[in-house]
């Protein structure tokens, strides 16, 4: 009798512990229920019930000053707290897939890579912003980014910032070798081959780096996919694409020492002087425009230690114009080549429970002050009226020149799946290992086409 009582008590305790552990704590989602009745006025200053909302940003591109401005202004205008969470690019896709549909865990506003916008907008992850479109900038917004955020004529995700890729090179190395800044794409390849030595790449390009390599496809008039009668097909086998890929293959083989499996990473570490050898490992690199902050020479402080930034670990680098230079990748016949248009869109999550407060944050983001601040930080503002705030130094000039001709990946609904599957890295890696370009293109067309039309 005693035994069974003890047994029952043990079972009850265990059950209690288990049930306590199992209960999901969703208390942090309880906030004042925002009235659905729209209190937005069309004079620009939206008023909404005070609510605590969350903003997701991808990677570290938006710097701390910009984040602080958003938090302060939101608190001032809405009274609630804005929490900003940064997501790393590598697991952002998985996080967005799982968090956006879940009303308890979704960010209210989120940045989203422009190449992922068509996928997420076409499945209904974002709220319709068409009625706010003119208020947020209308036709002054970067139209190619607006287009990838549109479905059936309605706006779901709007541009956040754009950047483009440009070339950074070692002026001192070029001068010693007697090489000039190239005017055409072929000259660029020839230069890279001439500059390459055993210890230094003429042009540092990872074999599986498709975000940089895609510029050669675009420059030769090719594309990754196109829409035929409403269905998207992969066009790697298109003759112009194949020409571009062959040019890339020659460039990689004759000009780069980078591993064939390396993809889009941190090429700027190669153009700085190597700590132990004092020489650069690359004479030329291609990187997003803001990478120039990480290029330069380190300096020593009075104690002989390397000067580091606020995080205590990264060395502060100072650009010097006699050592480094920048130019836009030249096109096949001169001018600026169409490079990969980097940047992000931004939208309000459809399952967010604070729609009005989220839309108020959007007005803050698209306000004149914030757009000017974005440009001042070197990020191309969504509202093209403010591109002059990018400045007029060489970096801004190159950024604008490269961005003017930049191209996006295909706006296919399944494009995020193609990126997530790693097929492009694999394909470029095999091409650059010296494979038969036409055969590989046909093989990968078959693998990619089914993914495009989800």
């Amino acid at each position: 009798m005693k035994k069974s009582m003890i047994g029952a008590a043990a079972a009850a305790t265990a059950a209690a512990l288990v049930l306590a552990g199992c209960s999901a704590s969703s208390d942090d989602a309880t906030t004042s229920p925002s009235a659905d009745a729209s209190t937005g006025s069309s004079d620009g200053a939206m008023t909404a019930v005070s609510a605590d909302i969350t903003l997701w940003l991808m990677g570290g591109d938006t710097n701390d000053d910009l984040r602080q401005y958003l938090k302060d202004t939101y608190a001032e205008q809405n009274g609630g707290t804005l929490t900003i969470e940064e997501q790393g690019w590598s697991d952002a896709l998985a996080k967005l897939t799982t968090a956006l549909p879940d009303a308890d865990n979704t960010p209210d506003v989120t940045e989203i890579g422009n190449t992922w916008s068509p996928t997420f907008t076409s499945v209904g992850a974002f709220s319709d912003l068409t009625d706010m479109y003119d208020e947020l900038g209308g036709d002054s917004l970067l139209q190619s980014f607006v287009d990838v955020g549109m479905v059936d004529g309605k706006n779901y995700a709007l541009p956040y910032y754009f950047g483009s890729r440009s070339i950074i090179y070692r002026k001192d190395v070029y001068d010693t070798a007697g090489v000039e800044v190239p005017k055409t794409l072929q000259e660029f390849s020839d230069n890279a081959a001439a500059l390459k030595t055993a210890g230094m790449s003429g042009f540092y390009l990872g074999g599986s780096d498709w975000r940089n390599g895609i510029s050669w496809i675009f420059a030769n008039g090719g594309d990754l996919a196109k829409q035929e009668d409403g269905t998207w097909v992969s066009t790697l086998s298109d003759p112009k694409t194949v020409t571009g890929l062959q040019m890339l293959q020659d460039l990689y083989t004759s000009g780069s020492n980078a591993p064939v499996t390396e993809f889009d990473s941190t090429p700027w570490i190669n153009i700085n002087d190597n700590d132990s050898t004092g020489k650069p490992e690359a004479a030329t690199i291609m990187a997003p425009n803001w990478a120039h902050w990480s290029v330069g020479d380190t300096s020593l402080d009075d104690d002989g230690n390397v000067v580091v930034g606020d995080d205590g670990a990264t060395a502060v680098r100072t650009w010097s114009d006699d050592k480094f230079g920048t130019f836009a990748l030249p096109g096949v016949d001169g001018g600026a080549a169409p490079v990969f248009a980097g940047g992000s869109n931004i939208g309000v999550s459809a399952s967010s429970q604070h729609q009005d407060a989220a839309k108020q944050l959007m007005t803050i983001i698209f306000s004149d002050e914030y757009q000017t601040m974005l440009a001042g930080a070197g990020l191309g503002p969504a509202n093209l009226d403010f591109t002059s705030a990018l400045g007029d130094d060489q970096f801004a000039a190159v950024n604008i020149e490269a961005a003017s001709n930049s191209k996006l990946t295909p706006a296919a609904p399944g494009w995020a799946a193609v990126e997530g599957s790693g097929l492009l890295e694999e394909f470029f890696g095999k091409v650059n290992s010296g494979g038969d370009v036409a055969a590989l293109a046909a093989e990968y067309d078959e693998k990619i086409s089914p993914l495009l039309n989800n």
Partner: protein
Amino acid sequence: MSSPVTSAKRDTRSEASLKAALQARKAKRRARLTPYWLIAAAIGVIVVGTGYPTVWQLVTSTQKYGLAQQFGTAAEFIGFQNYVDLLTDAEFWQVVARSLVFCFVVAAVTLALGLAFALLMNAVGKAARLTLQISMLLAWAMPIVASMTVWTWLFDTRRGVVNYLLDKIPGVDMYRFDWFASSWTFFLMAGIIVTWMSVPFVAFSIFAGLTQVSEEVLEASALDGASDGQRLRLIILPMIKPVIAIVMLLQVIWDLRVFAQIKILQDAGANGSQYDLLGTYIYKVGTGAQDFGSAAAASVIVLALTIAISWWYVRKLMKEDV
């Protein structure tokens, strides 16, 4: 004829004994059921924790479930189409073959090394044993991401210690050797790392089993003239067979499902499908390409594979009933 008093006494006595018998049976039943009540809570947790995902996977594997379904569109039932597509895909079979070879090779090497270390621990003095056990414990307890960061530095192309040391061997040229370039060297690297992480568990388990081997039997065999090798093969191994069987089973199952180490290595520089094992393949199909239906089907296939591999061991274990 018995008097009414005595018959009443007999009645009460038989009533009492009847009552006692009933109570005894009740108590027996309660006692029989008590163990089940005790484990009911634990089973409940397992059913909810692993049963729900398993059922969800089985259901989803029969549907066409993509990103649109994640956001609310109803999923279309397509029966076994996902399975058919997977089982007729040459690439899937390549991944399965690679995973099986990887898991058996790594499990075998881990077991051999673990056994060696366990025998060593058994044979040395206290100080040496303690040192060995502490260092193994540290290797095993280190968080995977932290240890993978260090391992990728060790195997780094330009500044890795492994390339540096191997290059010092005369005649071997490992200057800037790229471990990520071919899938052979990639899996060699992965194998070394997974073995390093698994050996401590095997060593400790076998060591625990070794402590149960009685000294008298070993002494008697030594008196009879058995060599060390014979002692190991004919006395020690048979006595710790149950431990080895369980440990081998666990290693095979874990190495078949290995994910974190392979994924982190892939992120460090080699993303193609020739570097995929089952874990990362399912991740790429599911979370990467958002085809959750296929990923669920692949997971069910892996589950079936795991059951098939361990079936023999589990049956043996249950028969032996040690």
